[in-house]
C-alpha cells in the first residue's frame, strides 16, 4: 500500500516536472526541471526493480547530459525567449498541441487494451548489475554493445570537430 502511494507520488512528480520543462521561458529553469524529472524517473525505475537502469539514469542523464546542457546554456549566456505563446506563433502552438494530442489519444487508446496488474513477484537478482551484465556479455547483445561504444567515440570526435574553432 505504502509503496503504491509512493509510486503514484513519483509518477505525479515526473508528470509535473515534465510539463514544467516545456512551459518554462528560460532555458536554465527548463534544464533544472528536467533534472527533477530524471530523478523522479530514476525512483520509478528502482521501484520497477530496474536497479542498474536507475543508477545509470542518475549517472548518465542527471549527471553527464544535464551538466553538458547547463554548461552550454551558461556558456551562451542565454536569456529567456519572449514567452511561451506569442501572438505571431499562436497558430504554430495550436498545431503542435493538436498533433501531440492526436498522437497521445492514439497511444492511450491503444493502452486501454492493457488491463493486467504488474507482476507481483520478481526474483531477488532481477535487474541487478550481475544479471544485466551477464545478459549483455553472454548473449546476442554483445555486438550491439560494442557498436554502441564505437557510436559514442564517433559522437565525441564529431562534437570536438564541430565545436572547435579551427582544427
Amino acid at each position, binding site marked *: 500500500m505504502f509503496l503504491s502511494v509512493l509510486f503514484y507520488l513519483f509518477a505525479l512528480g515526473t508528470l509535473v516536472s515534465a510539463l514544467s520543462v516545456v512551459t518554462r521561458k528560460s532555458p536554465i529553469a527548463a534544464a533544472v526541471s528536467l533534472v527533477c524529472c530524471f530523478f523522479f524517473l530514476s525512483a520509478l525505475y528502482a521501484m520497477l526493480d530496474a536497479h542498474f*537502469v536507475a543508477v545509470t539514469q542518475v549517472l548518465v542523464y542527471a549527471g553527464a547530459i544535464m551538466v553538458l*546542457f547547463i554548461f552550454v546554456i551558461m556558456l551562451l549566456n542565454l536569456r529567456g525567449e519572449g514567452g511561451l505563446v506569442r501572438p505571431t506563433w499562436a497558430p504554430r502552438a495550436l498545431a503542435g498541441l493538436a498533433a501531440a494530442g492526436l498522437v497521445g489519444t492514439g497511444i492511450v487508446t491503444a493502452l486501454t487494451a492493457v488491463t493486467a496488474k504488474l507482476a507481483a513477484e520478481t526474483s531477488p537478482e532481477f*535487474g541487478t548489475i550481475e544479471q544485466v551484465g551477464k545478459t549483455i556479455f553472454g548473449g546476442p547483445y554483445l555486438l550491439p554493445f560494442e557498436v*554502441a561504444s564505437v557510436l559514442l567515440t564517433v*559522437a565525441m570526435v564529431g562534437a570536438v570537430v564541430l565545436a572547435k574553432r579551427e582544427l
Partner: protein
Amino acid sequence: MDQIDLHIPLGLSAALFVIGMAGVLTRKNALIVLMSIELMLNGVNLAFVALARQSQSVDGHIFAIFVMAVAAAEAAVGLALIILLFRNKVTVELDDLNLLKG
C-alpha cells in the same frame, strides 16, 4: 507493488512522450527542443522498463541502456551544433534560422 496496474507506468510513458513531442513542435529555443527530445526518449525508456518487469526479462533494461547511450551521443553532437550555430548567427531561436527557406 501488486496493486498497481500495468497501464499506470505505460500511460505515464505515453504522457512523457506526448509532452516531449508538444515541446519539440511548439518551442522556438533550440536548447529546449533538445531537452524535449530527451523527454521523449525517457518516455520510451519507462515503457521498456515497465514491460521488462512484466515479462520478467532484463532484455528491456538492456534496450533502455542502449537508448541512454544514443541519447548521450545525440546530446553531445546536438549541443556542438548549437554552439556552432550561435557562433555564426548569434541566436538559438529556430525561427531566425531560415537559410534554406528559398
